[in-house]
């Protein structure tokens, strides 16, 4: 063990720890009401988790919530970047979710064409 090994371990564990502390740069909430689930919310969740693993994005946490009240536009997710207004995306498919991940989460650019509203339900 050298001094710098502590940093390496900390870096490796960052994803686990930001999740434990409930603090991170980005938070993705997948709406999983009955409507969301039947529209395929679980697939969206799996696709997003896969993106996070593939891109080795560490500073993102996932959360689930119940029906957001707009059942006809499910599957729906809300993305919050620290210090920014949350963005709701609707009518998602796995492909759309992947694109949102790489543009919004990784590059910080909102994918306006899939977005429903900006600035609701801030939780971060």
């Amino acid at each position, binding site marked *: *063990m*050298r*001094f710098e090994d*502590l940093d390496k*371990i*900390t870096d*490796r*564990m*960052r994803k*686990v*720890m*930001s*999740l*434990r*502390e*409930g*603090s*991170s740069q980005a*938070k993705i909430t*997948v*709406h*999983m*009401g*009955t409507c*969301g*689930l039947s529209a395929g919310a679980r697939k969206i*969740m799996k696709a997003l*988790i*896969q993106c*996070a*693993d593939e891109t080795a994005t560490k500073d993102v*946490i*996932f*959360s*689930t*919530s*119940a029906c957001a009240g707009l059942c006809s536009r499910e599957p729906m997710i809300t993305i919050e970047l620290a210090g920014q207004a949350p963005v709701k995306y609707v009518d998602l498919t796995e492909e759309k979710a992947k694109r949102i991940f790489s543009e919004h989460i990784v590059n910080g650019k909102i994918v306006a064409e899939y977005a429903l509203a900006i600035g609701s339900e801030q939780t971060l």
Partner: protein
Amino acid sequence: MKSCHTHLLLCAGTGCVSNGSYRIKEALERELGRHNLQDEVAVVMTGCNGFCAQGPVMTVQPDGIFYQLLSDADIPPLVEEHFLKGRPVQRLMYTPPETQAPIPKMSEIGFFKKQRLIALRNRGLIDPENIEEYIARGGYRGLAKALGAMTPERIIEEIKNSQLRGRGGAGYPTGVKWQSAARHQSDVKYIICNADEGDPGAFMDRSIIEGDPHAVLEGMAIAGRAVGSGHGLVYIRAEYPIALERLNLAIKQAREYGLLGKAIFDTDFDFDISVFQGAGAFVCGESSAMRASIQGEPPEPSAKHTHATEAGLWEKPTVLNNVETLAVVPEIIRRGAAWFAGIGTEQSKGTKVFSLVGKVKNTGLVEVPMGTTLRDIIFDIGGGIQGDRKFKAVQTGGPSGGCLPASLLDMPVDYERLAEAGSMMGSGGMIVMDEDTCMVDVARYFLDFLRDESCGKCTACREGVDAMHQLVSDICAGNGKQEHLALLEELGQAVKDASMCALGSTASNPVLSTLRYFSDEYEAHIRDHRCPAGVCKALLTFGIDPEKCKACLLCNKNCPQTAISGEKKKPQKIDQEKCIKCGVCRDVCKFDAVTVQ
């Protein structure tokens, strides 16, 4: 656990384990598997969360949702509702009795909100059996700093500047102790961690070791560097099986990572730690008795003509620090003395961990800045008295501490104030008593404990405590005399003055403090043959209120002495000659007809 987006932090402290948290773990894993969620949601067993009253408890991260009082049957609906459908289950959340509105987030629950965690900084957040989680929370950075950027003198200076005082009871300045050991030249020196926590109702040290064992190991290694010692030893009681297991595992992992052993961080510093199991004698927590115990001698204290820091274990310079003291050391080194010294009161810096037990609603483990008032601890964090009874006293400092009355509730808690009030900080036990507690009986209970635990070496302690116990027992039995009070006072003072170790010199505290603050209760026992709290059986008379008695004959059938008689459909009567005052009649009566005087 690689791609899990949710972690269920399930408490595996001793309290929650006895309430079945490992059964909950199995149920969670089974249900998560059933819904094919095992790759998304991980179950992590943590150390004591602190909110023991509500155990088994579980925190869901990253959302911070807190669930309590979990049972096996709660798990299938919980997994389906929350983890499959994203709907947190209100029924299993903490609901304060005053508002009746469930509080979802742990951080917003009163019990947690007012605490400040330093010694318990990782509680409920990490898996104590995984060293990497400790490292990821800043662990071993204090040791890295101490070895890489500080001289031993500088480390001692830093601890002195932080004004850290021993958390085991006496409150001796840690830096001064280290400095003294550093000054004495010797080929071998020892760092001993005192984990022989023996106070009834106290579990601070156990919880720290169970929940964050590496914090203690890191503190010991820093102490080793500061005083020039390569040998650490943890003296832990064998009655702490979970703590012992996690401690041994932590030592093994630290060795594997090169954080214990030879040339730590590639420096010239070697340090290793071994574990010594104590057999559970209260007196072994005393430094010279502990030394004797480790050396294989009878655990009796000896006169301290020389400091242990000069000639302690095996006549070598020895530093003996308490678990909590050592657990805060890495944070002081990492964050600096000024940060630590900025918390607390004039003479007591930092925070203190208390095990809050007794007749308080939220029993558990709490850490607050020094100077927090008793009222804040008992009523804000502790949630007040069970069953909304009246607060009578709080006993601080373990069996040799004292009982403080309601008039001192606004006293800020620190070493000096507690001592002035006739009690002490001790290791941090805090036992809350309500109006149904008899203070004479409490004094009798603690004297009985100390009488058993006295090693018997000093006459003052051996005979004095026994004599006080006899007098107080007599008072409880209704045979007290007015002159007993002065005699107790005098005996207490003599035991205090003439005992060699702290066990004896503090043994009178339960008597002296109850005499000081609750003399009216002693008077009532002696003069009126009455126990105001209705505890001392010899002074009670059971009777049946004929107005309230519905002649259901329940008491009659349940009385073990057949002391209750009466015809059917007529009020029952108790034969005082036969009555042994067991209280069964009062317990079984559904009409509140049994009276106690």
